[in-house]
Structures are given as structure tokens and as C-alpha cells.
């Protein structure tokens, strides 16, 4: 169970990205966060694993207050929370398997990892995760030799190496074309349904959100605008979230 309590974030330049956001996510849910660009989706996700320090409020996960954890504790928490990014955030010059293995860094002995040594078990696991996202044969290619969709799948494999209980996906398909988007979203759905990993995923497109979400939270200018079932979002709600001039676009 993930509990967000009164979360606020003010950036040092005075911009307030989140206003008093509170919600709970039961284990195993596929939660989609929608909203316009700049509505605070990325900030919210990053406040959960404290890639961004929240200004106020608490994030409590399985009874642990993430916001009060010290550096060492935070590392232990982070290794159970996977994250995938809009820009994939792979090390482009490293090969695919090194990128995937870096998901294991929270677990391995730091001294060994400096010399790029991973146990055979970890290496086997990396290949297995790559197999799962369907690009095992690319394991020894350089990451930047892969297409966008493949790179995002490497990103998912890297997150899977953490054996996560929670997955944060920050606009995972925003840089991809519609067909690839669906394939990446299908992988995320599979993690959720088969492995029971809780997924928090931010998306631009309502149509994608409707297809994959168990529940949708909408953010507008840093405030929670909507929290409920995907089919509850009708024309009026849509205009509330995206503004009067918005038109819904369908990705098929």
C-alpha cells in the first residue's frame, strides 16, 4: 500500500508544482496519472522515490515513511521501486546488458560493481529479463543502436532487475509512435497482472489511459482534479482536466 499524504512541492525558483496532493494506491493496482504537460505528473512520481525532494507532506509505503528515510535507508527503499522514463535514460554508449545489470546495483557489493563484475546469477537474470521484453538477441549491442521502442524495453528490463514491488513509469510512451506505444504499455500491463507489481504510470493520452488503467488520477496545475474509474471521465470531466479547447485524440 502506497499512501501519499498532503504532498506539496515548491521548486527553488518559486514555482509550485504540487499542491497538497493526497491519495492511496492499494497493492497491485494499475494507476494512470493524466494531465497536461507541466501539471505535475513527473514531479509527483519523482517525489515518491525522492529523485525530487518533496517540500511538504509524506509518502508512506508499506508502513515506511520514505520522506524521512536517511540516505542509506532511501537506497534500500529505492531498490524495490522500479522506474522507467520518457527519454529511456539509458547510458547510450554502454551495451544493453550493462544497462540492464545497472538495475541490480542496489543489491550487489559496491566493490565488485566498480570493476563491472556481476555474479553469473545476475547475468543470467539480466538475459532472462531481456528475453521477457523480447530483445534478448540485442543484449550485446550498444544501447543507442536500438530503436526507441526497444530502448524503452531495455528500460523496463533494467527496472525488472530490481525485483520491484512498485513501478513508476514517467510518460513511458511519449517519445514513441502509436504502435510501439501499445507494445510497451502491454509489457507494463503484463508486469502488473502477472507479477502483481503496483504500477503508477503517467500518460498524455486519455485513450491509452482508458485502455490500461484500473484507476485514473488527473492533475491540473499541481492539484488533483479527478480520481476514479477510467469510464467516469466524460466530455465535461475531460474539459475540466485538459481545458475548454482540448479535443480528445484516439490512439489506436
Amino acid at each position, binding site marked *: 500500500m502506497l499512501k501519499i499524504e498532503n504532498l506539496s512541492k515548491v*521548486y527553488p525558483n518559486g514555482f509550485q508544482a504540487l499542491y497538497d496532493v493526497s491519495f492511496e494506491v492499494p497493492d497491485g493496482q494499475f494507476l494512470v496519472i493524466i494531465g497536461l504537460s507541466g501539471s505535475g505528473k513527473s514531479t509527483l512520481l519523482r517525489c515518491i522515490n525522492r*529523485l525530487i525532494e518533496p517540500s511538504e507532506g509524506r509518502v508512506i509505503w*508499506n*508502513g515506511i515513511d520514505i520522506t524521512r528515510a536517511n540516505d542509506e535507508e532511501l537506497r*534500500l527503499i529505492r531498490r524495490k521501486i522500479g522506474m522507467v522514463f520518457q527519454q529511456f535514460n539509458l*547510458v*547510450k554508449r554502454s551495451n544493453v546488458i550493462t544497462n540492464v545489470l*545497472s538495475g541490480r546495483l542496489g543489491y550487489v557489493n559496491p566493490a565488485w560493481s566498480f570493476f563491472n563484475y556481476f555474479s553469473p546469477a545476475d547475468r543470467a537474470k539480466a538475459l532472462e529479463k531481456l528475453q521477457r521484453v523480447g530483445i534478448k538477441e540485442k543484449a550485446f549491442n550498444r544501447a543507442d543502436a536500438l530503436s526507441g521502442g526497444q530502448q524503452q524495453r531495455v528500460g523496463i528490463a533494467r527496472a525488472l532487475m530490481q525485483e520491484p514491488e512498485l513501478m513508476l513509469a514517467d510518460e513511458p510512451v511519449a517519445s514513441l509512435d502509436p504502435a510501439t506505444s501499445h507494445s510497451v504499455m502491454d509489457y507494463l500491463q503484463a508486469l502488473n497482472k502477472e507479477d502483481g507489481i503496483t504500477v503508477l504510470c503517467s500518460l498524455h493520452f486519455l485513450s491509452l489511459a482508458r485502455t490500461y488503467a484500473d484507476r485514473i488520477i488527473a492533475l491540473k496545475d499541481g492539484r488533483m482534479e479527478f480520481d476514479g474509474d477510467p469510464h467516469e471521465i466524460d466530455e465535461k470531466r475531460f474539459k475540466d482536466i485538459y481545458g475548454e479547447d482540448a479535443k480528445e485524440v484516439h490512439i489506436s
Partner: protein
Amino acid sequence: MFGDRPPSSMAAARSLLIVAAVLVGIFIYAWAFDITDISLEKPQDPERRSQLSRALRELFSPNIFEQDTDSEMVSVNFMATNNCPEDVDIEQPARDENGPYIVLSEECGFSDDVLVIEGFNFEFHPRNSGIIRWRLPNNTIPITRFELDSDGHFRQEITIPRLGRVSGDDPHQIEAESFIPTGGIRFTNTSKTVFEKMVETIFLALMATTLALPIAFALSFLAAHNLMRQLTMPLGPVLVGFIFFPIGWWVGATLLAMVGQFGADSWETTDDWDTVQALLSILFGAGVVGAFAGLRMLRNMVEGMDPQDLKSLTRKDGQNNSSDIIPAIFKASLRIASGIVALVFVMLVVGIIGGLAVWLGSEVQGLLFFNDLGNMVATLGELVELIIKIIGGLLGAFYLASMTSTLSAPLFKLTRDATIVEHTLGAILSATVTGMILYGLAEFSHQAALLILLVPLAAAFIGSQISPMIYKLIFPGDKYVKAQGARKWTLIALSLVGAIIIFVIVFVAMNAARGVVDGRRPLTEEVDVLSAGIKVYSYRALLIGLGLGAIMGGLSGVNSSFPFGLVVYNTTRTILNTMRSIEPLIMGIVFVIWVGIGPFAGMLALALHSIASLGKLYSEQVENIDQGPIEAVLATGANRLQMIVYAVVPQIVPPYIAFTMYRWDINVRMSTIIGFVGGGGIGFLLSQQINQLRYQEAGVAVLAIAIVVTVLDYTSAYIREKMI
């Protein structure tokens, strides 16, 4: 203010401004012209012109090759007087009609008279050359060169040189010598020396770059804004760490260094006792390893199979359980113990490596091909033994500082809700630390007069932090928002004012004018403080530090966030920038004083400058990397070092290689001139040749430099292109 005027007058004002700017510009250039002493008279002076053409001609006539020559020499007598008799009759040497001979147009004359010399029957060779000399009774003057035509004949007009007052009636001789190349062409000695010196130069540059590389690499991360910015720590643990730093240094430099020395000595096998000692050291090492493994096992048993299980954090949400404290102390002492054992092990290994290198080096040194290798290994081993105290001190200091600050962190957190305790503790600790810093600076400033400024400057820095703090206390802003607009400028102005006020007060209190104006070092007079002698000067600095530190720490409290990363960043940057602004030539002069004339001094100077320069170039590359992977790797639960190895290093390898090549290129160029101040390499040779006006030899050196620099330039450009 301009907006109120009608537009036309604004335009007029603007063009006036431009005219004024241009005028000012012209005056600045005129001044610069005058200062740089640009004049067209000297370059037109015919004497200078002929000197120039001579120097250039010789520079461009390098004597790279030489060849053995045979020579034929003939001479005729000449009567040098200003009243020649009607009938000149002087005795001439016997002429061999088949061999070479010369004929003069006149046999008598004096200075500035023109004379024609004709030579016959010389042996012809396409590359032969000849010289005509004037031989006085006590001196020989070279007059001119001549060229033979294919018949072995030449005709040369000469002017009789200024002979001064002629003493005696002894005839002068005019001799002509023709050289014919024989034997093989070979390099001149100059060429050979230049070649040797060029090799020395390239290796000097290579060593300087290699030495600088690892240090600059490590520093570049500390000088990278994007990596250091986020690094903050609560003030309390930082202060505790700082207090324990010198204690750790002392303990490390005494005890750990003893361990290292023991390891090093165990290899000096000269008699039986040392064999025993070697055995002992092996036993000792094994004991250390065993202790380490044992402690590790014990720790794992105490902390559970997975020592870092998430479950153990569950209580974080609620209150602290007092029954956890005993195991916590036990765990902490286990951690400390295993840390100490690890340090002892590291020191033993370092010592053994040093001793082994010295022993191995001296064994190998006699062998023919390995002489250089043995020398290198032995010198490196000696270096390790020399700095073993420093290694021990550094290890001890960093270990004790980090250990105490880590262990104290949770204790400080307990005071979070007790404001008075938090701030009182802050005042006490901060006073101790700033007192220590200022005292240390004061002791150090006894070295030289101008260093007397260190204490006022450090105090001013603290003052610049205090005044904005007081302002923020009176007018608290939004704690999450960086100050902006008017508030930001107020804070900047306040910190400046605070710095200046404190600087002036401390300057007067410390009587710093003594150093700045009189150029004298601080007084060494002592006072009795707590029945210990302490220098008055340092005592004052200590008191000032205690006062300022107490204010600063009292205002901020132990739990306020301390921008540790930014402090390290700014310190590193300042050091790098200062070092970069000192030219290697100046560093070379200093190193020549220390290690003597030769390539070693030049190498050290170039290495020091390369550290600064590469450190800056490297750190800019770190600042330019893609931040995404950093975020991603941190999100997996990696620690900061792992983040650097996996997210930063792969991105910076290509530019690092490129810049290192570039720096080597620069260092080769620099090392050609570092010799001018005695730093070895080809520059030393070049400066000698130039000082002795041997331009033809200097030409060889210049040519060699040009070739090597060009080749290296292209090579490094090619490699850089491949890498990026």
C-alpha cells in the same frame, strides 16, 4: 528614464553614445599603441636589418648533416702598407704548375682597397666550397667564400679588411682553401644532441600528462557542478567529522604508518632476523584477514542473513524503540572494528608493496635490459615508503571523520524537536571548528608576510554567511524558495557588507598591516593559556574563530542543511583556477630550485599545470553529460560512487581521452620552452644555442620542434576525431 523623452531625442542620445564609445575605443587603442612601444624606426635601421637577415639565414641553414672533406690550400704573400713602392717585389712561395695556385691582381695595398684573386687548377666537385682567409702574423680573418667553376678556376673580388695599424714589415698571407667532400654523409653532433633532447622532451611531456591524468580525473568530479550541487548534509555531522579529522590524521600518521612501515621493512632481507620478520609479517597479514572475515561473519549474524533488509526499517514510521539501542551500539562497534581491521590490512598491503618494489628494483637493477625497469620500480617503492605517513594520516583522518559523522547523525536527529538544544549544540560545535580553522590558518601564516591576510579573509567569508542569516531570521521568507528579485539583491549586499565589516575588524585586531605594509611576519610572542604556551597571534585568531563560529552555528543549528557539495566544488574550482593562472614557466623556476636543473623539474611543473588545466576541462565535460542516466541509476538504489561508475564514466570516456591527447600535445609544445628556465628538454639546448649566437645549430632544434609538434598535432587531431 529614457522612455519619457520623445523617440527622436532618444535616437540622438543613442548615436551620441555610439560616437562617444568609438572615441573612447580609439583613445584606448592609441594608449595601447604607445604602451606597446610600436615604432617603425628600429626595424628600418640597416644594421638591424642585416643582423636579422643573417640570423634568419643561419636559422634556415641548419647544420643537420656533415661529411668528411679533403682540402687543398694555397697561399700567397701580400704586402700591407699604405705607401706601396713603385715596384713591388715580394717573395712568393714556389708554385706547382700542376697543382692549384692563386694569383693576385695587386701584391701590395691597404685597408679598403679592392683586390682580385684568381685561382687555377683546383680540383672540381659539384658540391665543393672554398674560403678565402687573410692571415696576419698573429691572427686569421675569414674574408669570403668562393665557388669553383668546372675548370677548377675561380675569380673573386675582395676588399682588404680593416687591418688597423700594421706592425712590422712581415708580409701578410692570403690563403684560399677548397674543400672536397669525401666519405659518407652523417648527422652532425648537433643533430644527435637535438635528437636526444627531443626524445627527452616527448617523454617529459608524456610523464607530465600521465602524472596529471589520475589526479585531474579524481578532481574533475569534485569540480563538477551537476554532481556536487545536490550533495548536502546536516550541519552537525559535518562539524563532528571536521573535529575528528585532525585526530584521525594524528592517529593514522602514527599507528597506521607503523603498520605500513612494518610491511615495508619485512622485505629488507639481509640476515636471518629479517626472514623471521618476513614470516611474521605474513602471519600478521593472515591474522588481519582472518579478523576481517570473522568480524564480517559476526556482523551478518547480528544483522540477519540479508543485513540490509527493508523489514528492519518498518519502525521508521512510528516511534523509536528503546530496546533497539543496545543492539544498535553493538552493531556500530562491530562496524567500527571491521573498518579498523580493513584499514590495518590496507596499510600492511601498501607497505609490503612499497618494500617489495624497493627490494625487487634493487635485485633487477644489475641485469642488463631491466636496468631502467628496476630503477623505476625501486624509485616508486621508495616513494611509497616516503609517503607512508601521509597515506596513513589521510586514511585515518577520512575514516575517523566519516565514521564519527555517520554515527553522530542519528543522535543529532533526536534534537530536531528541541530547538534550544539544537542551536546550543550548533554554537558549541561550530565554534570549535571555526576556532580550529582560524587557529590553523594563523599558525600557517607565520610562514610569510602576506599570508597574514589568511585569517581576515577566512573571517570575512564567515561574516558574509552570518549577515544574511540574521536578515533571514528577522524577515523569514518562504523556506522552499530561493531568494529572488529585491530580496536576493538585499542578501547579496548584506553578505558583502558583512564580509567587509568583519574583514576590517579582524584586519585591525590581528594587526595585519604588519604583514601587508611592512612585509613582516606575525609576532611569535607567546602567552600562557591554560598553562600552555600559545602564540599571541594564533590565540587572537582562535578567539575570533570561536566567536564567529558560535554565532554562525547558533543561528543555523545542527540540523540545518549544509551544502557540503557546493563547498567542495567551490574549493576545488578555486584551487584549480589559481593553479591554472600560474604559467608553467614560473612553476618551472620554483621546481628548479627544489629538485635542481633538469627534466624532472620541467616534468613536475608541467604536471602541476596539467592537473589544473585537465581538471577544469574534464569537469566541464562532466557538467555537459546527459543527466537522464544519473537519475535512472540513482532510482535503482545505487550509491553515489556506483552512479558515477555506471552513469557518468561511460559518458565521459571519449572526451577524456580526447582532452588527454590534446594536453599531451600542449605539453610537448610547452616542454620545448620549459628548458629556458632550466626545466630540461630541448628548450635548454635551444636557449644555450641562442645565447651563444649559434643560429645554425638553433635552426636544427627549431626544425625538430616544428616536425614533432606538427606530427603530434595531426595525430592527436585524428585520434580526437575518432573518439568523439
